[in-house]
């Protein structure tokens, strides 16, 4: 199991470095998904299957939504198919694909090998997470709700109206 841990960690690091060095937003997002998947495996191997699943549902899921938003916001009509082909062309996709397939192999190995799943002794099940969240940390959960509320109210206000001038250094370029 240790080797799986190190491989997944290495993939996470490589993918994240690729994220911050890509120039194209969509390509960066592809690597970001891979990075989240790798982190999920790391969590699983460390004995936190619930967090691993959350990592995929929330983060990787959010990336997919983000991708859709990018396509929506660019508002491409006729040329959108061509654009998409260019974004996901073979040369670009090969890096994330290799990394993702290593992760897939790791996952299949975990599922089929029958070895005890975690590096650590005690696996923390979803039940344990729930028990501590709604037990001693229930006030923390409520505070996170408030945190979300402040985020939503702020986003609603800031996103409501468009602004012409964005930055004092960019003003001249835009004119």
């Amino acid at each position, binding site marked *: 199991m240790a080797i799986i841990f190190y491989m997944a960690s290495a993939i996470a690091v490589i993918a994240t470095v690729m994220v911050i060095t890509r120039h194209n937003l969509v390509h960066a997002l592809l690597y970001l998904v891979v990075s989240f998947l790798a982190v999920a495996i790391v969590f699983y191997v460390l004995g936190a299957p619930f967090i691993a699943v959350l990592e995929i549902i929330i983060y990787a899921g959010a990336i997919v939504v983000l991708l859709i938003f990018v396509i929506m916001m660019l508002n491409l009509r006729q040329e959108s198919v061509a654009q998409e082909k260019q974004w996901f062309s073979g040369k670009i996709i090969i890096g994330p694909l290799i990394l993702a397939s290593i992760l897939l192999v790791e996952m299949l190995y975990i599922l089929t090998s029958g070895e005890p799943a975690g590096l650590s002794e*005690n696996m*923390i099940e979803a*039940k*344990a997470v729930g*028990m*501590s969240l709604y*037990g*001693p*940390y*229930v*006030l*923390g959960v*409520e*505070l*996170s709700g*408030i*945190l979300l*509320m*402040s*985020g939503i*109210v*702020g*986003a*609603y*206000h*800031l996103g*409501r*109206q468009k*602004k012409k*001038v*964005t*930055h*004092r250094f960019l003003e001249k370029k835009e004119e």
Partner: protein
Amino acid sequence: MLFLSERKEVVMSREDLLNIVPLFILTSAAILILFSIAIKRNHKVIYVITALSLLADFIFLVTVDTPAKGIIEPLFIFDGFGKFNFGLILITALALTMLSYAYFEQREERKEEYYILLILATLGACTLVISKHFVSLFLGLEILSVSLYSMIAYLRKRKRSDEAGIKYLIMAAFSSAFMLFGMALIYYTTGSMEFGAIASYLAPFSKLPLLMIAGLGFLLIGIGFKLGVVPFHMWIADVYEGAPLPVTSFIATVSKGGIVILLVRFFLQINGHQYTSLVVIFSVVAIASMFIGNLLALQQQNIKRILAYSSISHMGYILVAFLAGGSLGIEAVAFYLVAYFITTVGAFGILTTLSDSQRDAELFDDVRGLFWRRPWTAAIFSAMLLSLAGVPLTAGFVGEFYIVAAGVQGNMWLLVIILVINSAIGLFYYIRIISIMSEKQEAIDRPEVTLKPSVYFISGITIAALVIALFWVGIFPDRLMTLIRFLIFS
């Protein structure tokens, strides 16, 4: 390690509930405003709800008799120190709400969301001052910062608002990341995220373990950013300048005050004064903050920026009291915070009342000849500036005196001498503003105030109350001192 092993029931006693009601009141106020907006947008109604709920919260905190020390495991502690600062934050938020009304009434944007964010940010700061666990610390800090992002960029039509908001967002997110990593390292070393447990793990060590130093270092980066002390001060001037004036004073007072209290609590609990490495780090930060803050303030041409840089040096002063430690040190921190809050809210409050609907009064030209145009306003502004400079008879003087006393008692001669030198430097730029105000100037065309006078009446009363507090604390500080002593050591 698991909580499951001993199935712990969470039982909240009546005292616990009473202790936590102030937080509930704030939350309910935010939700009430949300509903009120959903029914009808009315600036005045929402302003009244905000002010009343803050006032009710404060009255509840002061009058309802709760045991001297309540603990809600594992997140919160309600001791005298926490409650004192909780009340201080509430009353400051109330004063800021009062001043905000006239300011936002002039503007055309939607004003109502501001009050929700204000209340939530206050809630975040209040969570900070009573937290004794990294979870509540981080959640409180994030509630505070997330509300502040949008409050800073609130006036979307203004030029610098987005820039300030984005700068704060990036810096705050980055510093939060550092902080989380620091917490992870501390958790890895000590096996706990609760201050008390960390302290008992550290107690046998005379020198900090290496990972612990790294963890604390990362933690201090996060805290240092929020305080705006010197290596992490880059954002302060731009954010102060870009934010609407009431928000600027919120950042200067409530946001920083909450963190200071948290830092004091954490540092005292882990008994940080016995570790030379920590004391050296803080001393360097304090000295650098005092000097760089004051020297940069000397070169500014914008009052908001001057106050921004002066706030850096004031945080340096507070760090001196904090380093002095002991009971006198804590008293000095609490007292100085009160004096600093009164003065800062007052100074920004005056600028708020001078602002017109287009822009904030922040340039020297806005206050040039103010003594001849509006003598009372100018006199009050001068009083606030002199208090910031630490001139006798004002609250700022007593605060600084307290810090010097604490520093002398703690044998921090170097820091005390530097503090005195810096007060002298500070005096120079505060007096420069006053001298500009007293320059005689021919009447220039200024857009007349368009709002009804009753709107300014509320701001006027608030500022009058602040002035009275300023001199009352400055001339009879003993009442406040006894109160602080009573609360902290009860």
